[in-house]
């Protein structure tokens, strides 16, 4: 599904190249649940952003579902966002002016899903995440954990094949974090959604089935998690 070959990323500063990623080569298959780990500043977020096509690598090739991403048109990329990729952020990034319901609805509107279908999907998600009662509240009326649930519900609404999550539990207490991790695991196992998350917590990483250890922009270790 994802194929990275010799990905490099650097920032030029006063003529000096500061490498963030060096010769990253890896393949992630459909149905995997990958955790990216490493010290702060190692380049984890950068790698995830490259995978999510939010940033471009300075060098290297990247194939997403068999297509070369570097030669992808803007339009094509947006199509991928609409149909295949769901993002979950550490800071939730819900739209403040929209209610919970509307936040979840937004990607469906972009995808041009019919209104009946939309209503049933949203009802389903609200129900599944136990936030039916909150559907008319605005994000600033929710707790952090609740906001992140909405964030995940929003990512799932368009029924993506892959979820990219950058420290999704970074701002949450461990109880809430566990809830979200088991949710990810369930999605991965029951619905076959590919998940790639960045995390600092060894415990969270155990929910997945593969860990990429990164340090100084280099993949140091690529280990499978034994369950």
């Amino acid at each position, binding site marked *: 599904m994802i194929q990275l070959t010799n990905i490099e990323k650097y920032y030029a500063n006063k003529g000096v190249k500061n490498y963030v990623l060096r010769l990253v080569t890896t393949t992630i298959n459909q149905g995997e649940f990958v955790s990216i780990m490493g010290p702060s500043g190692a380049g984890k977020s950068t790698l995830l*952003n490259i995978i999510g096509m*939010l*940033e471009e690598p300075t060098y290297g090739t990247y194939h997403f579902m068999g297509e070369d991403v570097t030669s992808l048109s803007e339009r094509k990329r947006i199509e991928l*966002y609409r*149909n295949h990729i769901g*993002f979950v952020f550490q800071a939730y*990034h819900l739209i403040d002016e929209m209610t919970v319901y509307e936040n979840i609805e937004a990607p469906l*509107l*972009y995808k041009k899903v019919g209104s009946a279908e939309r209503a049933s999907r949203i009802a389903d998600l609200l129900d599944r995440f136990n936030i039916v009662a909150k559907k008319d509240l605005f994000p600033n009326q929710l707790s952090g954990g609740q906001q992140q649930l909405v964030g995940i519900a929003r990512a799932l609404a368009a029924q993506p094949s892959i979820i990219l999550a950058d420290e999704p539990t970074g701002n949450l207490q461990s109880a809430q974090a566990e809830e979200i991790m088991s949710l990810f695991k369930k999605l991965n196992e029951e619905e076959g959604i590919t998940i790639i998350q960045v995390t600092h917590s060894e415990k969270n990483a155990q929910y997945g089935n593969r860990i990429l250890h990164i340090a100084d922009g280099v993949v140091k270790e690529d280990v499978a998690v034994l369950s």
Partner: protein
Amino acid sequence: MFKLNLKIAWRNLWKNKVYAAINIGGLALGLTAFVLMLLYINYEKSYDSWSPELKNVYQIREKHDFFTPDNKEHWQEISNSRIAGIIKESVPQFTAVTKIDQEWGNGFSVKIDHADPVMVKGIKDADSAFFNVFPYQFIQGTAANALKEPNTVVIKQSLANKLYGTDHVLGKEFKLVRWRDDTGNSLKITGVIADVNTPESIQFNAVSHTGDQDHDPDQIGSSHYTQIYAKSEGDIDTLSANKSLQKVYVDFKKKSFAAEKLNFKDVYKDGKSPGLKAISLKDVHPNPPFSLNWLDKLKPVIGISIFLLVVSIINFINLATAQSVQRAKEVGVKKVLGAYKKQLILQFLIESTLQSISALFLSVILIEILLPAFNHQFNITLSFWHNEYLFSIVLQLIAVFIVVTLLAGCYPAWILSNYNPVSVLKGNYGNSLKGITLRNVLVIFQFIISVTFIIAIGVMHLQTKYISGKDLGFDRDKLINLRTGYDQNFADKIRRIPGVQYVSTTTQVMGNAFNNKSKIIYKGREVNLNGVTVTMDALQTLGVKLVSGRLFAKEYVQDTINSVVLNEAAAGLLGKNMVGQTYGKVDYQGKTITFQVVGVIKNYHNEGFDKAVLPTVYKVSHLGGTSNTNNLLVRFDTKNYKGVINKIEGEWKKLYPDFPFQYQSMDDAFSEILEENKRFMNMVVLFSVVSVSLSLLGLFALSTFVAKRRTKEIAVRKVLGASNFQIVNLLNKSFLILVVTANLISWPIAYILVKKWLEGFAYRIDLPLYPFLLSSIISIVIAVLTVSIQARKTAIAEPVAALKYE
């Protein structure tokens, strides 16, 4: 999606109520000024467009130098009446020609049976062909027959209603008395025409056919000047028509010069040339013979109102982009959810449309409220809803609206939709410097306009004060003008009334400035002076100041024959020590008469201060010139002259029962002269107030946003120990630089504009420095106050709140 976007737009507006209100209010102000202008322009453009047939009507203009304000040749609306006959005979392109007498005086007296006479303005005397040329619609009577007979009159429906209370007036008669001791004509109403719905360049309430216009003066040397209009049958080639006109005119001139024993070459020298042309009726109003046309007069105002609109659009853009910081996250998130850039641009355009629609509604309300005042100011009748051209005005409005919305919405939409999701989602959008430079430039631009306005107001105020306090050269107190000719009997009667000091007449006085060229020969040199004829004690009546020699007096017999008084301007042209000197003047028979200068007086003003006092020679005639000077000056020796005027009116009624008594005090004549300038000044003040408040609104909102955006920085600084004052200063500094820059730029701009305005006055102040200083101080103080209010609010807030929130 559309519905959701609308909802978001609404929630955003609501969240930022104050700024939304400022935004919408500002735009509404700008739009209002612009739409008022639009209405005015439409009004001016609608002149003489009440019938499609008018495209075949032409005004004849002759080039000559009679009755001109500067004694130079102009293409004039009044032509030698003989020309009408010549056109009828020898220019076949024109199938009908009519002569319309100029209106003089303050209207004519209309006496219906034994009722008191009333003054009616706009009774034009024409020949019988008037309605062959102008396609007025007859409610009663017919165009073909109405004016056939002499002593007939056709009146407009509105006048019929005013005079008789009904428009069924066919066959009724009234007496028309045109001046005080006119025996009058009894006119029979032979037609009633509908009032037209557009302004007309020949304004009239009635057209009479007394018969006076049916023939030209008998003597070849004397001529009668009238307006001449001609009509063609269908479209004609005006170029060739004008060629024929020019040709027959030159022939006519040659013939009449031969009869008068004049040499063609002698008359047309020094750049003078004969000229006759026809201009289409629709070109009459835009091309007045002497003054600037309305478009040129209006240009500065059009410029200003466009400026105001631009300023309000700038505010709009400024606020929208400043606000966009708050929207950055929304954009970033939507982008990763799969929104096209196009969709985002559309969303933000819809938002600005929403605001500009509100502004539009608000401005329509404002226009309704302001129109009466505007009409009063410009002395016109504009209306929005009852406008003949409502449809086209609405179209123009829609066009303006679309342009405004696009101008105001596009830039912010573009800025917003361009946010890069990564940096936004990383959380550093808050410090994004995008658009800062542009916003600063826009703030500077607004302040340039405002400061320029304030300087202009200052200078205009000083100039106005100067001219309204200027010594007129005569004493306008306790002096009235009866607007009638001099009659010895009447003058003697009112001289006997206690309180009356002088009674006299002159051909020229403030409020009735009639310039008459007079060529003299002094020491072999030809000099053109302005000639004024007065009665013996007219100069005393005016209270002019003597510089040397003496004024006219009864004791000197020669004063009624060949004594003259010069004003300083004339004396300056001729030489030093003019008293006692003599000069020659050729009379109409070719004889040279010698005149002696007996006195020199200080210049005194008859016209506005835009015009220099002409070099003038004053000459006594026993009757004060002709009987129709239309000025009868009365000076009182008491301040309470109201009762004296009543007594004069009593005498008047006994002598002239058919003509109403009218007078104008010299104070009023003077205010009338100042009026135009005052109007212009009022308008500038109005526009400045709008412009300055728009700029301040903009600055206020912008500083709020900046303060808000820097909330966290301010909180941190406070925790680190900054005082409130230091924080207010911090915010002020960035804006102060902008305002100071704007001041520096506007000084030279204002200098050029104000200097140009002052140059329009023959009598003006030296360009003062202090309006410049004052405007800079005012703008800086106001800016600092505005920013400080906002900054203080942020500064005194609890720092915890800001820090906790993050």
